């Protein structure tokens, strides 16, 4: 499957099937810090992604010091 990451924007190829929770573990990402988006909507943590899927892993942490 194609996994788009941000900051900087890049695309990874990841073998399926894999659950969202496992995917984020593989990418060493904290589930509190990202959303997984497919086709314009959210993908729940227990969803299984297969090789044909294209998903975006979007960071949610933002902000300056004020």
């Amino acid at each position: 499957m194609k996994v788009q990451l941000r900051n900087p924007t890049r695309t990874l190829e990841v073998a399926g099937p894999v659950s969202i929770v496992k995917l984020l573990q593989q990418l060493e990402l904290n589930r509190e810090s990202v959303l997984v988006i497919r086709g314009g909507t959210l993908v729940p943590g227990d969803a299984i992604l297969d090789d044909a899927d294209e998903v975006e892993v979007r960071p949610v942490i933002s902000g300056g010091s004020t």
Partner: protein
Amino acid sequence: MKCRVCREPAVIDIRRHNANFCVEHFLRLCRDQVAKAIEDFHMLEPGDRVLVAVSGGKDSLAVWDLLRELGYEADGLYVGLGIGGYSDRSGQRTKAFAEERGWPLQVIDLRDDHGYDVPTAAKVTKRVPCSACGLSKRHLFDRAALDGGYDAVVTGHNLDDEAAVLFGNTLRWEAEYLARQLPVLPARHGFPRKVKPLVRLGERETAAYCVLRGIDYVVEECPMAAGNKHLGYKEALNAIEAASPGSKHAFYFGFLDRAAPRFADAAPASGEGEVLGTCSVCGSPSTNDTCAFCRLVERTAGAQPVVLTAKGSS
């Protein structure tokens, strides 16, 4: 995964609530949390007219949308900071959001209207960019709210923002800042009331709200904020949250409930404290003859503009 409310397929899990939600009930949860924050902290009254500080990011666009959903007369104010392509894209998203909905948006551009931008101000003052950015935004939002007769300034600070600031202030026991770290600051001394209706929502939730509402926000991080302490505190707190869901909520709301009153007598740490007079240039409250914003305008006048490299223009 099924929605806790209706048992239909869920789209998001919120571990600190130990619950999953479908689209409809997640959006309802967000509205309910904002309504509860407004009520619990007496932020707004029905019919209040408010000015939302919008940046084009997820939090400010979400809070604007949520306040409108809850029936408040909420207008927007966007300040163009001059941070290269990042500011260009932020301004475009903000204007498109307002235009699509027909909601009033006031735009101020630091370079066009006041002769400087954040990168240039940071260079001239030899301070971090977030300092000039925060100073500029606070002054301009306060001024616009008072001039426009608004009842309050609304900012998009969320639970993660507040917990991270609290974490930093606690690490250094900044009593004066702790005394002011409240979700609502009443109007006083020529300053408008300031409220933070998103304090009961984490930023994963505000981002999810935008995705599910089809709000096209700026996802990229401000290139000037990259690597700052605030982001480091957020990452540290998220590591704790992952191991112990609910920690950020307990930390922040525990502070408000049990610790904040103990700091109430600490002297204010900013220029909003012991205001003795008004700025001779703009008339804003100031402890000096000239307020910090007008001094910044003076210092940056004629300075060679800083041209950002790839980070601000990519």
